[in-house]
């Protein structure tokens, strides 16, 4: 398939792996920031192809995983209301809140719909003028323009029965929080390609300079990931710490100016609590005052909800790259996609779920895996 098969070529992959092997002289810890990148790495067995010196740890870039339990409970409280049609991206449906998940609420009669684009919610709102249509706007900078457009259009077109429950998070503050942590092991980053498609990578340059870490903005196909690893290892071996762009077919340094302007018009930066990590200052978006009529949190006045995570779940450490999924005693035994203890197991992009889906819980099978 054009523009896909070229990036999944076995012979080229072999060449890049050989080059990584040739230049690497010592152990390096690299973090891929995005959940989509983690997914590709595990799906294609990329980490098995790399030399032992290159260790990949998985970052906090799964927006479903890092959405706080309080926010999920708020979403459920709104979704339960009989006057509401609650719209969400698909992978949020199975994420457990304190009492339930959206699939269960749906089975109890709540009107919950999966949408591919937030703009679809506007159609639903127009078609159901007697209902309040709420979109659960989660995600990083990648989904922000689409979500912003839905809120903006609702305001422009006077669609009063549409609102958004905003739980947006931002990548650079999370990377800063990981790098500043005394537990940090990360020496180089595969930067988030699609986030940078929107916002560019100027913002990453001060991070690289301040913490002396190379950051290579990387794509999502197997060859993208391998090339990103090669470029990062090259910098580490050379002792440089620049921001490089592996993904120029999509990413420009300044990002997408039109999208950024729209996001700025609709959202403002706020503090945000991340599941498993905690409060990170200036790490999220909320709707600006001008769009208050479309802000579900204000409209529905859901009260703050006290929540507690299971003590055994170490998803916070997994999200920060300190631990890997199989370091957790519950992984694959007490905690599986059918019986998830933490969000990194529920969302398809969560590191624990990716490890499970692609068979990493079969420790005893490891030898066969390596030799097949």
């Amino acid at each position: 398939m054009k523009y896909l098969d070229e990036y999944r070529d076995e012979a080229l992959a072999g060449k890049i792996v050989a080059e990584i092997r040739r230049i690497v002289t010592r152990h390096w810890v690299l973090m891929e920031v995005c959940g989509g990148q983690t997914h590709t790495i595990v799906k294609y067995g990329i980490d098995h192809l790399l030399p032992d010196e290159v260790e990949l740890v998985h970052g906090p870039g799964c927006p479903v995983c890092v959405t706080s339990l309080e926010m999920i409970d708020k979403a459920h409280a709104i979704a339960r209301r009989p006057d509401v049609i609650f719209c969400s991206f698909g992978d949020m449906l199975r994420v457990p809140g304190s009492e339930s998940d959206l699939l269960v609420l749906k089975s109890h009669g709540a009107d919950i719909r999966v949408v591919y684009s937030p703009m679809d919610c506007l159609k639903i709102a127009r078609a159901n003028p007697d209902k309040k249509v709420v979109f659960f706007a989660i995600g990083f900078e990648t989904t922000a323009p689409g979500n912003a457009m839905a809120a903006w259009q609702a305001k422009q077109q006077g669609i009063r029965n549409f609102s958004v429950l905003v739980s947006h998070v931002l990548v650079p503050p999370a990377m800063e929080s990981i790098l500043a942590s005394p537990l940090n092991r990360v020496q180089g980053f595969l930067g988030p390609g699609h986030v940078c498609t929107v916002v560019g990578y100027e913002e990453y340059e001060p991070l690289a300079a301040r913490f002396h870490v190379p950051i290579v903005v990387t794509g999502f196909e197997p060859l993208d990931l391998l090339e990103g690893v090669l470029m990062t290892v090259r910098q580490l071996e050379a002792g440089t710490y620049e921001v490089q762009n592996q993904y120029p077919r999509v990413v420009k340094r300044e990002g997408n100016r039109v999208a950024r302007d729209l996001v700025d018009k609709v959202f403002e930066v706020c503090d945000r609590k991340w599941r498993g990590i905690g409060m990170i200052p200036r790490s999220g978006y909320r709707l600006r005052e001008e769009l208050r009529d479309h802000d579900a949190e204000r409209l529905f006045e859901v009260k703050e909800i006290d929540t507690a995570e299971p003590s055994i779940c170490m998803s916070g450490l997994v999200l920060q790259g300190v631990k890997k999924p199989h370091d957790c005693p519950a992984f694959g035994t007490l905690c599986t996609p059918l019986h998830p203890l933490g969000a990194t197991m529920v969302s398809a992009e969560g590191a624990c779920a990716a490890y499970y889906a692609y068979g990493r819980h079969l420790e005893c099978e490891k030898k066969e895996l390596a030799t097949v």
Partner: protein
Amino acid sequence: MTTPDAAARNGSEAVSVLTGSCPLPRSNYQDIVLAHGSGGKLSQELIQKIVLPEFRNDLLEPLHDGALFSIGEARLAFSTDSYVVSPIFFPGGDIGKLAVHGTVNDLAMCGARPLHLSVGFILEEGLPMGDFQRVVRSMREAANAAGVNLATGDTKVVDRGKADKIFINTSGIGVVPKGVNIDPKRARPGDKIILSGTIATHGIAIMSVREGLEFETEIASDTAPLNGLVEAIFATGTDVHVLRDPTRGGITSALSEITQSAGTGMILEEARIPILEEVKGACEILGLDPLYVANEGKLIAIVPADAADAVLAAMRAHPLGLHAAIIGEVTGDHAGFVLMKTRIGGTRVVDMLSGEQLPRIC
């Protein structure tokens, strides 16, 4: 330490003991959710925990596509299936055609020659008469094409809103020819796994109409009766070990179930699994893995290695097997698990889906 299963048996109290203050897991569903019907792990759990303990008997136990039994000299296959697809008309087919093909194929996957089908309709008040007529006519045409007889039936009407337009159940019986012994337990290390054509087409065809997604090319369902293709395979004289049509849950669920029944493993080669370009593109856009997407009109044959080329040739000579391919083989290692050599040379386990496959955010 308490196991999750023990916790499940003891209910939610055990779960909270297990995880301290944990308010989280929604593992032991108190009600049916849609994922119980997805053909993945939750479907399996539902059958194993609720249905099988009550119904247990020798005919049901293999959990095959149909039951096999003898009356006098004759070996018969008996199978049933219900159809609730929405929308009821879709590119390449409709619910009626699907209902005939589904049971014909379930019988064919038992190695049987399908003979007679029963049809049960549940109709929603308000269904346009023309739509019903169209479905019934389509069933007659499908039955004629498959060479089966719609021998008995029943019709019920329910209040508006109590069903979605039309639900259909079909059951069928067929005769298993002498010398044919299809059984998932018969998959042996070394056997070749042959797939009759491209995957994921039906699931994507349905989804594109259901979600109102507009692709440049229309993707039509590949629903078809497989009994003719099975006869072509049998005509090679091969002792076919396993046949399976990978419908709900995709080829992954079908193959995982076979490894579990047979106590073997499997190794697949991703690059050899046929898929239409437009279906692959749609899966990429929607964030779906085609290995888990439903198929119709496709079968998996597991045959001894020395017969694989003959079976492949026979399949490719049949209109429904033009794109047939050997996609992997049965192994003695890693029993119960399907491994796949990925396109770039890595390896991963292909596991059955836990819930419904949900579109990813980005």
